[in-house]
């Protein structure tokens, strides 16, 4: 297991935080998929307009963002105390709190709890934390079937696919593809099923109804956990969350330790920031809050699993830790020009897009997701929409630097970037060398195809692996200047 400043990062071999292929390779493949790009463009354009409209309605949106940022920063500054307070409030009201150092330990805890409840099936509320730790795989290995109940998660599960968006894991699928998945994989699906979204939602309702009414164990995540009161909160739309949080006898909630918020009144800030940023609604259809066990109402056995899995390693980096403030709204994905074109799978982690590019490498250690901090144009749109004002571009630049430094330390010699930059500096301080280099660069015109250069010879090949280089002009500016007869 790698560490950052002595703090262990998320272990490899379990869960879904790591790239299988570097971003440029995965992105090139995604970019070749015209259907994917069309689906993403349509969906992100829709949601951007909705978000802008409901954010524009609030005269105090900036003040809410400031408050959200301030609450999260203060939470991180005293994280241990708030977690202990949360634990003691939850325990006092009949909940059982478990701590998990990493994904493997969290999976073991949940598997044991499901077995103790004598269940071989669980219903699940959409939860990034459980996607992160690969809980469904771990349960399956123990002979336990996990049924995803969020519509998009169900589409992903039935399609044996991977989530590609924080809020809408099946954003890469259009209605026709979803219809085909349902017709093929959903037991008892109507053969005449159309691709109308309302018909698809109805099919999901019928398919899951029986499972909801008979399930004995549910697994959820949590959007917020209030230290002051021990209240857990899940924000959702479809009612699948309410079903899972209300009807089973046992409820197991897996939550990253950064999800705690100090005070009850903090909910008044986040319940405005999250829905408007996320689905572009003034309020999401359903929000459930529960505080320990309520006799006669809802699950009578409640468990809360507090998960580290690399979060403390992120906390140790003062220039990167703000990534832990994320409330998983996905606004940054929807505005990102890179995400809109590549989709989420290219990022390789359950946390894609701009926030994923700063969060995943910190959870795993930068070396294991080394290309992600570079998967951005640094345009800053993500920072502008972030409801808790995470300065994502600044953290990206910081992580790029961290990658270069760690690489030098690891390999004992400077990286290709460092050598290239040193060479560029040597050339550019001398006018004569600069002129010679410019003349030489014109030779690259021979490599052009359709007005671009997509493959330079080594060592410059490193540059064109991820991007096309412009064709150098026939004439440099200095040559043109002289041709005008000027000094």
């Amino acid at each position, binding site marked *: 297991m790698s560490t950052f400043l002595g*703090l262990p990062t998320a272990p490899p071999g379990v869960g879904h935080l790591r790239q299988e292929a570097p971003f440029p390779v995965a992105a090139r493949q995604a970019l070749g998929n015209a259907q994917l790009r069309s689906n993403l463009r349509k969906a992100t354009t829709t949601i951007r307009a909705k978000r802008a409209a409901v954010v524009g309605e609030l005269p105090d949106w900036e003040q809410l963002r400031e408050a959200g940022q301030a609450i999260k920063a203060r939470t991180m500054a005293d994280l241990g105390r708030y977690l202990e307070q949360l634990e003691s409030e939850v325990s006092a009201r009949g909940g059982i709190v478990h701590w998990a150092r990493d994904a493997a330990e969290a999976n073991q805890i949940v598997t044991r709890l499901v077995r103790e409840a004598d269940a071989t099936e669980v219903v699940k509320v959409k939860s990034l934390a459980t996607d992160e730790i690969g809980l469904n795989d771990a349960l399956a290995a123990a002979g336990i079937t996990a049924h995803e109940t969020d519509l998009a998660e169900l589409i992903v599960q039935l399609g044996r696919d991977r989530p590609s968006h924080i809020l809408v894991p099946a954003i890469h699928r259009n*209605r026709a593809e979803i219809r085909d998945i349902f017709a093929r994989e959903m037991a008892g699906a109507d053969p005449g099923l159309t691709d109308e*979204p309302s018909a698809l939602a109805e099919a999901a309702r019928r398919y899951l*109804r029986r499972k909801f*009414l008979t399930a004995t164990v549910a697994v959820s995540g949590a959007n917020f956990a209030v230290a002051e009161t021990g209240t857990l909160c899940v924000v959702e739309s479809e009612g699948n969350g*309410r079903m899972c949080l209300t*009807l089973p006898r046992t409820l197991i909630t897996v939550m990253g330790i950064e999800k705690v918020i100090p005070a009850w009144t903090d909910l008044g800030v986040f319940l405005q920031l999250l829905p408007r940023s996320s689905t572009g609604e003034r309020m999401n259809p359903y929000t*459930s809050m529960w505080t320990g066990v309520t006799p006669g*109402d809802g699950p009578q056995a409640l468990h809360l699993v507090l998960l580290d899995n690399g979060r403390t390693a992120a906390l140790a980096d003062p220039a990167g830790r703000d990534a832990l403030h994320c409330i998983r709204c996905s606004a940054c994905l929807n505005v990102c020009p890179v995400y809109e074109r590549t989709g989420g799978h290219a990022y390789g982690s359950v946390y894609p897009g701009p926030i994923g590019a700063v969060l995943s490498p910190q959870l795993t250690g930068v070396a294991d997701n080394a290309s992600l901090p570079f998967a951005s144009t640094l345009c800053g749109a993500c920072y502008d929409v972030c409801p808790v004002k995470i300065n994502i571009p600044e953290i990206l630049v910081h992580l790029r630097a961290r990658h270069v430094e760690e690489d030098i330390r690891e390999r004992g010699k400077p990286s290709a970037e460092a050598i290239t930059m040193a060479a560029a500096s040597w050339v550019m301080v001398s006018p004569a060398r600069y002129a010679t280099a410019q003349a030489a660069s014109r030779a690259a015109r021979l490599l052009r195809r359709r007005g671009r250069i997509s493959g330079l010879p080594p060592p410059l090949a490193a540059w064109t692996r991820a991007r096309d280089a412009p064709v150098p002009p026939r004439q440099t500016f200095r040559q043109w200047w002289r041709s005008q007869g000027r000094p």
Partner: protein
Amino acid sequence: MTAREEVLARIEAALRTGGTGPDGPVPVLYRTHGDLSLPELLALAASRLADYRAIVRRATAATLAAEVSAALAKRGARRLVVPPGLDIELPAFAEVTVDDGLTPAELDTYDGVVSRAAVAIAETGTIVLDGSPGQGRRAITLVPDYHLCVVEASQVVHLVPEAVARLASAAARPLTWISGPSATSDIELERVEGVHGPRTLEVVLVAA
């Protein structure tokens, strides 16, 4: 070392390395109190509820029973489940069961549920149930496909922070915040009403 001790020790080490950052109270510069008159407040609540496809009826104390009866008749809801302690007059055609711990499968056989609420938020078109008498267990307002909810004018606030403040004393109870019928945006991010929760939400706003 237990996992608990180890995670807490890691947090302490991380904060020692990275510094703790800001402290002191969070400045509250956002709106915490609304500024609408009661008629404006109710009009806003009605329009925002309707925006998210709740059916809205307006009533006074004198017309409440008639409005409830008209709503149920129009819906064709006869077999009703209600929470204990519901103080609303229901029409003679309704066959009413007071919930005493019905199973989910039993709840699934009812036409609808009638309840009160704890708080309503005008700006977002939200009603909040806190499980006290007249509102009942969470399951009864979840499983039936039709939910008729009666909200008194005195329960309506303008802003989300006002609702959170009012609910502080109910924080230990299970809370359900409802904004329109169940919905999804999971297919091409287009909103579709009606998934697992009640597919029809009807709210009767009772003026003071």
